[in-house]
């Protein structure tokens, strides 16, 4: 008998023999194969028998159903086929093997490791499911103590150096100031600061010697400089 193996990465979550003529797949618990993940639609796809074959059909899901790396609306399943739904995979074990179809794949030159571009329209459909694109935050430092060129620094660049070096975004003065005291990185998820090669750094009075994720109001002390980190709304 044919069966389906539900996997997440390498881990096998479930093995299901194909006893019914039809099985539904979706996020909602009433599906025959429920997959609890937000990338999966409530009713995502169905697998059904027709003639001597077994088919998969996408039920208008947001993120699509991929068979062997290709987006499908309806397709016949063959032994060893891999269905991708959200971030879970379903492996199909059946009697029929894909002989003729493999050739069709090759002719069209669409193997799974080939780079493809996706239509912006499809893209929106795929990503709309969880479109909670956060607005980007801008942050900066207010200098409390120390000798710098400005009192306030807005951090717009991906990496800003605090140091004496020419290109440093926050430029330290004084003969003994280090070339690079620390680096501040701006990423989509926020800012972090990393002290450079064993330099001393204090955050809110505590010694920190590794990467630190900056929060609004943090007091940073590095190389004779005391600054407060702020986040702009």
């Amino acid at each position, binding site marked *: 008998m044919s069966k389906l193996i539900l996997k997440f990465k390498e881990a096998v979550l479930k093995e299901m023999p194909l006893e019914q003529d039809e099985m539904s797949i979706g996020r909602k618990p009433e599906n025959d194969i429920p997959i609890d993940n937000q990338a999966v639609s409530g009713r995502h796809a169905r697998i059904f028998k027709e003639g001597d074959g077994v088919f998969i059909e996408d039920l208008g899901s947001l993120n699509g159903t991929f068979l062997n790396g290709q987006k499908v609306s309806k397709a016949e399943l063959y032994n060893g086929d891999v269905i991708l739904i959200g971030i879970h995979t379903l492996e199909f074990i059946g009697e029929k093997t894909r002989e003729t179809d493999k050739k069709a794949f090759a002719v069209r030159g669409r193997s799974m490791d080939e780079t493809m571009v996706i239509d912006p329209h499809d893209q929106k459909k795929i990503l709309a499911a969880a479109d909670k694109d956060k607005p980007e935050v801008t942050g900066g430092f207010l200098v409390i103590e120390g000798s710098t060129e400005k009192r306030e620094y807005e951090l717009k660049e991906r990496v800003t150096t605090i140091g004496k070096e020419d290109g440093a975004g926050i430029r330290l003065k004084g003969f003994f100031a280090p070339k690079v005291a620390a*680096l501040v990185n701006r990423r989509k998820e926020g800012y972090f600061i990393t002290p450079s090669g064993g330099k001393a750094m204090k955050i809110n009075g505590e010694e920190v010697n590794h990467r630190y994720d900056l929060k609004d109001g943090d007091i940073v002390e590095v190389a004779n400089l005391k600054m407060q980190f702020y986040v702009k709304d």
Partner: protein
Amino acid sequence: MKLSVGAQTDAGMVRSNNEDNFFIAPEMGLLVVADGMGGHASGEVASKMAIDVIKDYFDGLSSGQEKLIGTYHEDFSRATNRIASALRLANMAVYEASMSAPQWHGMGTTLACVFVENNRLSIAHVGDSRVYLIRAGEIEQLTDDHSLVYEQVKRDLITKEQAEKSEMKNILTRAIGTSPDVGVDIDEMNISDGDILLLCTDGLTGMVLDDQILSVVTQTRDPHEACDSLIRLANENGGLDNVTVITAYVVKERWFSSLVNFLKRFRR
């Protein structure tokens, strides 16, 4: 700032052809990588064509022609707007070519381009080829991949680790030449003495971790050696894709070397 640049490309261990291309003009401060795609070897055509357009664009600039294409971003420097224009022009050229011949239909390419002028770095990119900055023992990716998995990571649908293993890793959300218009991402920042810039195609980043890249490029000051080692590493790890690497070591021009350069002009 002076750039000490090395560049290398390799087909990898699996593929028979190399669809990557690159261009370097260290004296101009221009570095570009491209990763082509498409059937019937059209990927090679697309990446080559895109690079040639950028080369021509900068040649045109030095002879006084300046074409600015698309929206001018006031927040960014003229130099940054220029490289964005060059990428848009490349998009138009590849797109028109793909429409003109059936065997080229659907071809496209990624482009990652940097331009260095004094201590300012301008970046423009489309696709999943990357630009990295290595500074003070840390490595930071300066470009956001235009790939489906990156968009999913951004929206917290999947983690970075899942993205690395995703079956949809090769699906791009933007490419040069696949549509009449393309959104070019631009950015700029300060660079300083001792910084290292690295441009690469996904054949490197798919095979070699960021931390490994960091340790290889900081172990030497020879840009060619760094490129060779990175390509060797990508191939040792499987070499599943074409791989291209450009490394640029940023060196502050000392007064005496400026003087030597100045005097060289009179020796001709």
